[in-house]
């Protein structure tokens, strides 16, 4: 199951809520303002590091570019809309907002 998160973790509890329900192995995809979570060296970097121990983490590249985020937490993979579709091909979707 693919979990998408579109809210900034600073502003809303979406990220913190979502990760409580994610099972090991299931991918997370950060989109829209959600991508701020994977910017390296911010308050949520330790949480992202913990998630990466059990789950693959992706972020939508066009949304990273739009926000000027170039340095990602290590292990987070940037995908484009094609990559988003590819993840949806493989998984049912659980969209958290």
């Amino acid at each position: 199951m693919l979990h998408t998160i579109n809210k900034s973790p600073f502003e809303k509890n979406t990220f913190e809520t979502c990760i409580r329900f994610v099972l090991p192995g299931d991918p997370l995809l950060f989109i829209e303002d959600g991508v701020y979570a994977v910017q390296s060296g911010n308050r949520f970097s330790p949480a992202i590091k913990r998630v990466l121990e059990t789950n693959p983490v992706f972020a939508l590249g066009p949304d990273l570019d739009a926000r000027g985020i170039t340095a990602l937490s290590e292990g987070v993979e940037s995908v484009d809309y094609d990559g988003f579709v590819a993840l949806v091909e493989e998984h049912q979707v659980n969209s958290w907002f």
Partner: protein
Amino acid sequence: MKIGILLKEGPYNHQASDTAFKFAEAAIKKGHTVDAVFLYNDGVTNVTKLMDPPQDDRNIAARWSELSKKHGVEILACIAASKRRGISDDVLVEGSAITGLGTLTDIAIRNDRLVTFGD
């Protein structure tokens, strides 16, 4: 693969509508069928033909209309949500229609995926 989209926010105010559109485009380009975009909550305001953004900006209603024409994607607004927000047949952009929530059940059943975009 057949994909349905549920869009729960209006145009411009939230990025949800833009992301849904970009996702639909990419899915079609990859050879998938985007069967329908169902509009709920403020999402119903995506299809008013009265919107008239600045010339250098995207026209979101026109864009959904185009997607419908080119690729046969049904653009469907929930009737109860539409009535609340002043979306009626009179203002619908070409290629969109108003329908009941039963249709969303059909969309959920007949598609391999239902992907939601909201706020």
